[in-house]
């Protein structure tokens, strides 16, 4: 633990710290461009110069290890002069286009120029100009503004694991480029926009749309996957203008996926903004009063066992509390929150949580992936796995379809047979599994959403107990969800009750005429054509797959339009907040359900969000502990049964189009066409 003196104050810092970090610890702000705590040190911008006694010249603090007895000055005349010099050099080739630059108002270079910048330019030559690069539909470039900090290159190479940007040519001619003028292939690429300290890399969809000081910023939670990334929703008027990450070390660090960042334009298109009822075969606009009248006509007299509720992937926990209460009062046992047909029993939380936790991945030393493609199912879980791999001493094996996860993976099989062999200790990987100190297993949706899902769960259970996945303060068994709603649904018990049917049973029931009414709460990923025999109520946000077959449409609020609780795959409840109001006649979903219950004469007496949350805490006390993960107790789950031979397949065939919002987004469709299609083509062509 070296001791240093920084600006006259003695401070002890952990071994391995740099002078820069020591200064930060001492509360000194050091201006910098290239340094980033989550990236390797580059030391190429020179903005972080400090004076260290006995050193002949100013030192780049970000690249200098802190050593015992150093005497550092961060505020001396020499330091100021040096920083001024560096900044003047950076500005030599930087255009003076702040008034038309998207970064204006949130630009590191602009901010530092305020403190260290010269008041006029002494450079009389022509500035250098650099041709803009094409990096795909997400990242816009203005390369003349680039100061060559290489953060973007380092991010893609190190964190994203998709090394596609580089510095080509050299010296005065250095250009940051992917050289080939094609779209980048990372699903985390949007983060380089945040990382770029100047306006060289901008968001293409947001380009020239708004100024930072016009935006209202709302801290919220993302729902594009089950990670629960912390986001900030920036809105102007009643329009979401962009979405940015917020720091949460245990969840998304400071990154978000491109779907999280860019799917927001889907909030504008194909919206359901008025209630609709089917008349003479066509859906026509109606008032809420008419909609509820239709609802009561159809539902009022119907016995509970002849109706069913199916919940989709983007449903908030509050609405689910209401569905539970309403179904109970209607005597309806046919409720299912697993629209993917996952064979999760839901009796035991440990069965369906990512028990290791996302941050916990960093402690693991062995990982067995089963039927999962984390890169598409939960990009930030994959980024953690990659982070763990980069630390060294981490082996990853997979049972399932091969896919490039950006780190080496040993493929040991594709289907349940291999999993069985592992569970019975007959596979050669068992040795490594047994030897590992903190092994983990990740069961993906592709492993449990299938006919033999319960048997697969039983095998995973057996492996967990047999190979020491459960230890003192360690639970290596994980289920990876793709739906933001799922864990809350399971925690709140939105599963078939006594004599109730699951989704498959409901669909069969409709076909057999035993179920006459189905209430879909944002459930679009089901075989909607099989619902033809029933009266279908669709409550949701988008005219996606289910709304066109509905007989009654109730327009709900999207995740940016309501105050809601979301529970991520670790079981961490977090609060999303209203950033803009729902469009038109659309209403918050729990309120719609509350009003419906009253119209049906089965009033659920929860009159405001606090009452709903209080009831939620009664049903599932852990959901009241906001932002904390309540460890789940271990027990038995899964059911032994026949295994099929079919290989595990991830349910996600297209990363960009996984839910109604994303499917409505033009940007996401463009990504799908431009980023994914060439990849698939390449797989048969020159690549690999």
């Amino acid at each position, binding site marked *: 633990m070296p001791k240093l003196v920084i600006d006259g104050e003695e401070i002890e810092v952990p071994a391995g710290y740099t002078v820069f970090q020591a200064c930060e610890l001492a509360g000194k702000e050091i201006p910098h461009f290239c340094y980033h705590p989550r990236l390797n040190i580059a030391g190429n911008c020179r903005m972080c110069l400090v004076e260290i006694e006995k050193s002949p010249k100013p030192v780049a603090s970000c690249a200098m290890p802190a050593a015992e007895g150093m005497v550092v000055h961060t505020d001396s005349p020499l330091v100021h002069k040096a920083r001024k010099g560096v900044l003047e050099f950076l500005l030599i080739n930087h255009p003076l286009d702040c008034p038309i630059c998207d970064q204006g108002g949130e630009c590191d270079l602009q901010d530092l120029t305020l403190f260290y910048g010269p008041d006029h330019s002494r450079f009389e030559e022509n500035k250098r100009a650099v041709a803009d690069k094409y990096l795909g539909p997400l990242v816009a470039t203005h390369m003349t503004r680039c100061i060559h900090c290489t953060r973007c290159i380092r991010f893609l*190479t190190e964190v994203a694991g998709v*090394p*596609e*940007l*580089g*510095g*080509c*040519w*050299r010296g005065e001619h250095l250009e940051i480029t*992917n*050289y*080939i003028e094609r779209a980048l292939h990372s699903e985390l690429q949007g983060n380089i926009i945040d990382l770029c300290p100047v306006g060289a890399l901008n968001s293409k969809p947001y380009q020239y749309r708004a100024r930072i000081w016009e935006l209202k910023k709302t801290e919220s939670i993302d729902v594009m996957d089950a990670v629960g990334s912390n986001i900030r929703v920036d809105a102007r008027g009643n329009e979401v203008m962009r979405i940015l990450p917020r720091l949460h070390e245990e969840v998304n660090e400071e990154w978000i996926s491109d779907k999280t960042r860019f799917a927001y334009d889907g909030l504008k298109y194909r919206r359901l903004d008025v209630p609709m009822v089917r008349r003479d075969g066509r859906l026509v606009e109606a008032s809420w009063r008419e909609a509820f009248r239709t609802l009561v006509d159809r539902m009022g007299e119907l016995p509970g066992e002849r109706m069913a509720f199916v919940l989709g992937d983007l449903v908030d926990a509050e609405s689910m509390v209401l569905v539970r209460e309403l179904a109970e009062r209607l005597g309806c046992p046919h409720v299912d929150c697993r629209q993917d047909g996952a064979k999760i029993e839901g009796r035991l939380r440990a069965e369906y949580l990512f028990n290791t936790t996302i941050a916990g991945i960093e402690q693991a030393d062995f990982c067995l992936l089963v039927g999962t493609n984390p890169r598409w199912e939960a990009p930030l879980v994959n980024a953690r796995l990659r982070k763990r791999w980069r630390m060294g001493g981490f082996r990853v094996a997979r049972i399932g379809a091969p896919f490039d996860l950006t780190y080496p993976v040993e493929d040991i099989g594709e289907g349940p047979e291999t999993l069985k062999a592992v569970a019975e200790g007959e596979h050669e990987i068992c040795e490594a599994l047994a030897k590992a100190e903190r092994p983990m297993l990740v069961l993906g949706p592709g492993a449990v959403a299938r006919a033999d899902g319960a048997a697969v769960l039983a095998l995973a259970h057996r492996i967990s107990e047999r190979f020491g996945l459960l230890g003192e303060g360690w639970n290596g068994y994980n289920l990876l969800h793709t739906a933001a709603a799922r864990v809350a649904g399971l925690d709140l018990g939105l599963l078939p009750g006594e004599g109730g049917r699951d989704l498959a049973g409901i669909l069969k029931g409709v076909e057999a005429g035993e179920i006459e009414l189905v209430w879909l709460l944002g459930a679009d990923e089901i075989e909607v054509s099989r619902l033809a025999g029933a009266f279908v109520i669709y409550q949701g946000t988008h005219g996606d797959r289910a709304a066109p077959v509905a007989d009654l449409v109730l327009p709900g609020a999207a995740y940016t339009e309501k105050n809601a609780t979301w529970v991520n795959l670790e079981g961490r409840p977090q609060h999303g907040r209203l950033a803009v109001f729902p469009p038109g006649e659309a209403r918050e979903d729990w309120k719609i359900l509350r009003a419906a219950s009253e119209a049906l004469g089965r009033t659920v007496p929860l009159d405001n969000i606090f009452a709903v949350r209080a009831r939620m805490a009664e049903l599932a006390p852990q959901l009241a502990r906001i932002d904390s993960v309540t460890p789940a107790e271990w027990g038995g789950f899964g059911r032994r049964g026949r295994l099929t031979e079919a290989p595990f397949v991830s349910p996600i065939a297209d990363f960009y189009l996984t839910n109604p919002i994303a499917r409505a987004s033009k940007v996401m469709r463009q990504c799908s066409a431009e980023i994914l299609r060439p990849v698939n083509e390449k797989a048969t062509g*020159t*690549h*690999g």
Partner: protein
Amino acid sequence: MSTTGEGMAPEVESFAFSEENLEKIRGILARYPEDRRASAVLPLLHLAQEQHGGWLPRAALDHVADFLGMPRIQVYEVATFYDMFNTEPVGRIQVRVCTTTPCWLCGSDEVLRACREVLGVEVGESTPDGRFYLREFECLGACANAPVLWVDDDYFEDLDYARTKAVLEALKRGERPRPGPQSGRRGSMPAGGKTTLLFEEK
């Protein structure tokens, strides 16, 4: 940078090393540990450029990257960083004039003038028939024999206007002039005769 001349090696969709080069590559790779194959990127790029007639189309860069199992962008970075690699079509015979201070003091301006006249192109251009590519270069490390002209694998040294012209005209005729000092001195012995070791050898 330059226009595509008929005689230049064309842009191609795909590239693969010739049998002969693959043989050489086996030898090159043997110099590096198995997990450090990427170390061979420079010699492989040279071979690829030679095989493709003086420049590296993207297909060749990609092939080298895939061959060595390294990210393609890293090969693009290397190929664009080094001056000796051409990433755009240029003439097959590369005529490079050293114009760094020692050569300049010894008359590289004259060498350059001869090149311009004989080849009929400016620095950075290729002849219309695609045969020659003229460039300036920084110190070629042969200052003792300044000024220096470097053509493909040969150095021509101790040049002046006339000698340069003679060399280039011979090249134009398809001959291969004798490389080395064109002044008649041996290697880089002192130009004005010996100044040390003056005693007679026994």
